[in-house]
């Protein structure tokens, strides 16, 4: 090799370069085939009026995108996903952090708690949806509520709180958001717990020697050290929650009017329900754009926080 480099350095550089590219070629090919090509294909299809079956397509340029801008149901569905995400970012992540903090201490049955808290994310979304559908059911049998929640409310004589949880526009989306958070907090819990365990214990000991209270340790050591982990959990939460749909389908089927529509159910409906494949592709592009912009903003924000 050394002899060759003395003889013709540029030839060796090209050979090395070629070798390097050869190594990454499989990855590039797979990435191009399964990510880049589908993206351009979807964008291409979004410029057409097409039913998804016919061999002929009608070119309409950006017509589908203009229609999306005026599609109230679509933007309502985006807002619903944002609402579910907001609940997940606050309620779900706060719960996950509180539980991670508890399990980070030397408490009894720590391993058991970790197992239990990690159980909901492992369960299938369909199964979770169906179980919660039964819990929130408003059906009656022989004058007794069938749903577990309404049953307990009856037993507690809280009749005024009983309702048709999934068929009431005031509670349907929130019920779905809470179930989504219940199912999702385990992921955040595991990541946050892993983050907590990377914090040097000596920092805590030193703070305690200096007389710092638990609250002060949390505020001045734990939270600042956990910022990168929080950002990562937040990005994962946003991406996961915005794309929720299996849970929605298993809990409310085709939906309560338009009150439980989320972007993915709208895309599916355009694709299969109304056979507007081109429009569905355009919805996919717009939705992808929203997620990319959201993630980019959060990334910039996290960079700024880290610098501070």
């Amino acid at each position, binding site marked *: 090799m050394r002899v060759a480099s003395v003889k013709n350095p540029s030839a060796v550089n090209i050979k090395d370069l070629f070798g390097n590219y050869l190594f990454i070629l499989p990855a590039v090919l797979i990435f191009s085939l399964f990510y880049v090509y589908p993206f351009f294909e979807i964008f291409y299809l979004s410029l057409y009026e097409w039913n998804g079956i016919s061999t002929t397509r009608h070119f309409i340029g950006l017509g589908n995108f203009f229609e999306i801008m005026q599609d109230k149901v679509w933007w309502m569905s985006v807002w619903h996903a944002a609402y579910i995400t907001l609940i997940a970012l606050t309620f779900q992540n706060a719960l996950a952090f509180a539980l991670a903090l508890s399990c980070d201490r030397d408490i009894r049955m720590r391993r058991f708690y970790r197992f239990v808290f990690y159980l909901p994310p492992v369960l299938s979304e369909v199964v979770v949806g169906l179980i919660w559908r039964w819990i929130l059911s408003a059906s009656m049998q022989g004058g007794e509520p069938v749903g577990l929640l309404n049953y307990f409310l009856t037993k507690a004589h809280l009749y005024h709180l009983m309702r048709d949880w999934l*068929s009431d526009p005031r509670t349907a989306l929130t019920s779905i958001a809470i179930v989504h958070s219940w199912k999702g907090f385990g992921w955040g819990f595991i990541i946050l717990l892993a983050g907590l365990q990377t914090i040097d214990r000596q920092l805590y000991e030193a703070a305690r020697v200096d007389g710092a209270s638990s609250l002060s340790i949390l505020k001045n050591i734990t939270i600042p050290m956990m910022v990168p982990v929080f950002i990562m959990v937040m990005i994962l939460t946003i991406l996961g929650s915005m794309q929720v749909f299996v849970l929605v389908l298993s809990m409310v089927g085709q939906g309560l009017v338009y009150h439980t529509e989320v972007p993915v159910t709208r895309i599916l409906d355009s694709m299969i329900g109304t056979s507007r494949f081109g429009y569905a592709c355009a919805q996919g592009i717009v939705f992808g754009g929203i997620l990319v912009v959201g993630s980019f903003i959060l990334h910039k924000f996290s960079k700024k926080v880290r610098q501070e």
Partner: protein
Amino acid sequence: MKRILPVVLAVFLLAGCSPLIEQKDTITIWHWMTDRQDAFTRLAQQYEQKTGVKVRFELYAPSDIYSRKIVAAAQARALPDIFGILGEKKRLALFVESGFVADLTDEFEKNDALWEKSFFEKALNVNRFEPDNAYKVKPGIYGVPLDVTNIQMLYNEELFVKAGIKEPPETFDQFLENIAVLNRLGIDGFVSGWGENWMIDCFSSIYALNIMGEEKVMATYRGEVSYTDEDWIKVLSLFKTMRDHKALVPGIVTKGNKYAEQDFALGRAAFAFNGSWCVNVYDKMNPALQYKVMLPPRVDPDVPMQIWGGAGSSFVVNQTAGNRQRIIDFLKWLTGKEQQVFLSQETKNLPSNREALSEIPDVLLQFAKAMDITTHPSLWPYNESPLVTEAFCKGIQAIIIGEATPEKVATDVQRLKEREMKRERQ
């Protein structure tokens, strides 16, 4: 090692090819009918023993997943030998026009149309395109009906006895009176899978036919009559009336048909609106359930009620499938009397072969009696745009939960209809 490697690779490649060779001798069928998979498999075994031809039924359920798979397979030109197309006739027309479905007219007409005559005419018409059809498809028969179905109302006999109701209601007013009696005893009245748009569409369209007649309904679909017309308001108001009379079980607007079937099978509601497939479902959920079939009560007592029906499950043949005659021979065997009786008894569905009707269970006969008054969107010359239908059904849900009035829903739907017509003209 360098010499061995290509040999090993070649062996693996050839081994990989062998299942493909086997698949060529096999008739592959894709379907979505979970309740029929066992019976299909047994029939496939029988057929293989009889003819040596291997038939493989591949189940993809639920139906929406199946529909997605069919569309994806069509785009990839990878459809199986035999498959079913779910949805309205427009969808079948699209598959035919795109060259995915074989024209079976010649086969049906062979031997003095012996095969054609063995079916219920209405079942066959679902797969038939007449000359000058609205879809501009070449006239012919493009599918083989496997069973027929119709959608009616059912009532729980035990709950009727408990409430002292002797006869099922014939008019809508009688129906509401029955509901009031049932409600006084703490019994919920009516259940249906109105979390699924097509079930709402089915219920509302049979009442539209009863209230204004088929011609006016078709005129609306053509855009000549407005949804704000008083007859349409009357149709939408039926749902408000049912809500006001507490006729509907709680949560009906998010109930999929499976949940509605469960409610009726477990005696949680006295009336149900469901299709003839329910006989099989109720039998599995609660074999002790005592129920009977009735026609939906009429709003206009002078106009006979029409119900959705005729269209059951159908199979079509892939236009590009090799050895078509072998595939058609299998379909002829599958729809023969003996196999149809077997399917009907095993799965409790109405057979498409009229000769098999004499040997079916009693409760199915009650459904079968109404086959003459069935209609279906697949048989109509015009169909409403899916977007308008969706808005109409969602509007009905909004009426049921008290969020919108019939008039507001009618106005919103008409606005969308006009937008869609404008888009179609462009």
